[in-house]
């Protein structure tokens, strides 16, 4: 074979050609992760809180391009359409309550004994991310990625990178990761001044209202930066068990207050008015904008174990503990069990989440704390997401392999969340301050 003198080159080329013949383009031998093809994951998530508060439709598409065994590019696109109402933070009352919309344009009224929800909540979000991962010699691998998401009033841009070190014949992997992101928020109506009164239209001219509203704003946008560091180890225990242990540190700096959340000021003067909304000089109830610290440091420990049983079923359990300098600590236990049934599988899922409240969480401010507009507290929020809560989720997923690479799946999950805390003083004690949240997800997925 004079045309090609290097006989080894012939052998290598022959090996490659044979693999092509048998593998890459052959339908039977096609397997996920094969070079030169895109793996595509699509899903649509429908989320609904059972009382109709919030509903969301979230299409997700993920494209992975494999270049060879280990190098790949993953692109992910998510679009969210959220509609509904979310709790504003104000307490319910035995009187109807009127609130100004966050934009300052218009009001909404909540009936007596109803939990105040801000129903102007409507948003669409788009997010894109790209990640490149590749080996680095025999013992290392790295990945780098970029992320961007934008919505009407929020923008987030981030970069991330990880490096992995393989030990013990790749039975042990050490991982280190770093991600940084910069977020900016520019809510309609501007950024509220901390603890300023929500301007209300009743009993005043539109001009007077506007002056008061403007005084409660401090510019149109604000920023925060986030740095996350992750250190982890993944250990193959035996042929059927793999374990992962991670520590992560997250540092956030900047504006972390929710500009749409308020607190009611409740009269704590003993007497008939105890526990009712405090009334200001304009004859309206007093609601103030919340304020949170401008830095937060979180530590989290995460442990996951995945085990394959002799019959091919897979059990996957994880536990996460998080603690931060806002005084919140949380525990998450999550268990999946996958029953293999030939071409299909059934995967029940259970999750329990327990969280303690932030140091500055309070269901309301008292007139003493409000102190006539010069609050004695520097931070306060009534956002239930920072309060004490317990939530449980039960789910079931069914997946069917049409072929090795094509999978359809349906996932349904039901979550019940209960919050607890201070039950209120005087008249307020008769109100339900901590309504449960029930939510239902349905996700349809198609992977090909």
């Amino acid at each position, binding site marked *: *074979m*004079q*045309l*090609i003198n*290097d*006989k*080894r080159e*012939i*052998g*290598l*080329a*022959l*090996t490659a*050609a*044979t*693999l*092509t*013949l*048998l593998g890459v*383009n*052959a*339908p*039977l*031998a096609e397997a996920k992760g094969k070079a030169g093809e895109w793996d595509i994951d699509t899903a649509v998530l429908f989320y609904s809180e059972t009382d109709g508060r919030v509903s969301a439709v979230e299409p997700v598409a993920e494209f992975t391009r494999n270049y060879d065994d280990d190098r790949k590019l993953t692109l992910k696109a998510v679009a969210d359409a959220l509609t509904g109402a979310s709790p504003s933070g104000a307490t319910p009352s035995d009187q109807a309550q009127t609130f100004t919309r966050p934009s300052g344009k218009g009001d909404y009224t909540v009936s007596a004994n109803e939990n105040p929800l801000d129903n102007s909540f409507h948003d669409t979000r788009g997010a894109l991310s790209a990640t490149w991962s590749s080996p680095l010699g025999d013992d290392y691998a790295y990945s780098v990625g970029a992320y961007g998401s934008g919505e009407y009033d929020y923008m987030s841009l981030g970069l991330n990178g990880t490096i992995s070190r393989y030990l013990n014949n790749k039975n042990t992997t050490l991982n280190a990761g770093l991600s940084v992101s910069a977020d900016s928020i520019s809510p309609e109506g501007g950024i509220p001044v901390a603890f300023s009164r929500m301007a209300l239209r009743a009993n005043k001219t539109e001009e007077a209202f506007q002056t008061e509203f403007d005084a409660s704003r401090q510019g149109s946008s604000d920023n925060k930066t986030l740095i996350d560091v992750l250190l982890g180890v993944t250990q193959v225990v035996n*042929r*059927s068990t793999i374990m992962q242990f991670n520590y992560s540190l997250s540092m956030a700096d900047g504006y972390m207050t929710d500009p749409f959340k308020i607190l009611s000021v409740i009269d704590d003067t003993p007497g008939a008015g105890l526990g009712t909304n405090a009334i200001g000089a304009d004859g309206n109830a007093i609601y103030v904008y919340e304020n949170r610290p401008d830095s937060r440091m979180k530590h989290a420990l995460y442990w996951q174990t995945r085990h*394959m049983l002799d*019959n*091919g*079923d897979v059990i996957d359990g994880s536990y996460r503990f998080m603690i931060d300098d806002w005084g919140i600590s949380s525990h998450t236990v999550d268990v999946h069990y996958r029953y*293999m049934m*030939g*071409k299909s599988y059934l995967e029940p899922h259970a999750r329990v989440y327990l969280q303690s409240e932030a140091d500055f969480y309070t269901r309301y401010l008292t007139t003493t704390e409000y102190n006539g507009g010069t609050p004695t507290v520097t931070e306060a929020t009534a956002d239930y997401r920072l309060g004490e809560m317990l939530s449980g989720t039960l789910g079931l997923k069914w997946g069917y*392999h049409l072929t*090795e690479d094509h999978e359809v799946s349906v996932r349904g999950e039901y979550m019940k969340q209960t919050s607890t805390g201070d039950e209120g003083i005087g008249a307020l004690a008769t109100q339900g301050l901590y309504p449960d949240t029930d939510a239902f997800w349905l996700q349809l997925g198609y992977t090909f």
Partner: protein
Amino acid sequence: MQTLSLTQADNPLNRPEPVLLTQGVLRVVRFQAMASPCEVLFAGLDDEQVGVLGRLAARETWRIERALSRYLPDNPIARIHAGRGQRIAIDPELFRLLSYADQCYQMSGGRFDVTSGVLRHAWRFDGSDRLPEQALINSLLTRVGWLRVQYGEDWILLPDGMELDLGGIGKEYAVDRVLLLLLHQLQQWGKTLAEGQFGVLVNFGGDLVCSGPPPDGQAWHVGIEDARRGEVAIQTLSHRHGGLATSGDARRYLVRDGKRYGHILDPRTGWPVEQAPRSVTVAAATCTLAGMMATFAMLHGAEAEVFLQAQKNIQYWIQR
């Protein structure tokens, strides 16, 4: 012993039904295809699973044989031959095989040529001393030449009078495809090789491939015909990884004036490759690769050993 029944559609050539038998801890499914005894050995799987897998194996083998055989009147190869210079539609599998044949042609400098089958009209390797007339060889050579075949993803144009013979690839290809198909089915059942609970070996007349060592970690023991003796003698071979294939047939040769002419033909001259080994056996990652490495070695003639020594990740045995 039990027979595995297949539908008419799955057994288009009306072959005897495969049989399933137990040999110690192994289960074996045997059937006939491609002029060879075919067997698939299973370890760590029960009768029910092996029944399903055995049917799949026979069905796939017969499907490939039916698609690629040049002896059948109504198959893609026959239609291509009947096309007489017209474009004929082909399926993706045939396109992949043609692309592979094309690469092998290029890499061998024109010595591996799937259009060289017409030369068999001149050569009868029956152990006699009857060499063909050069005039006959010359006339047949006008019908040989891969570069005159045009093809695309879904069509082929074979010039009138030429023949396409994928027999040099088909059997080894079938061996690998059957293994891939069985592993695919096992994976559907949630069984993966990483578990080390099962093993499969596919052996079509000594061209074979296995999924890895059997669960006990030892080797597979396969009886193969010993080509070196030039007679029907069986020897046992131990095999643990990948594929194994043999090129050459010690019984097919001519001898004239003390010179031995083996049956491997050089399509450029129409004559047997000079100083080719009697047989070359190669162990490589897959059966197809082993078979093609062995074929290339044969085509290297006197340099067969040099060619094989230059390769990585193979083992070989040469009989001269």
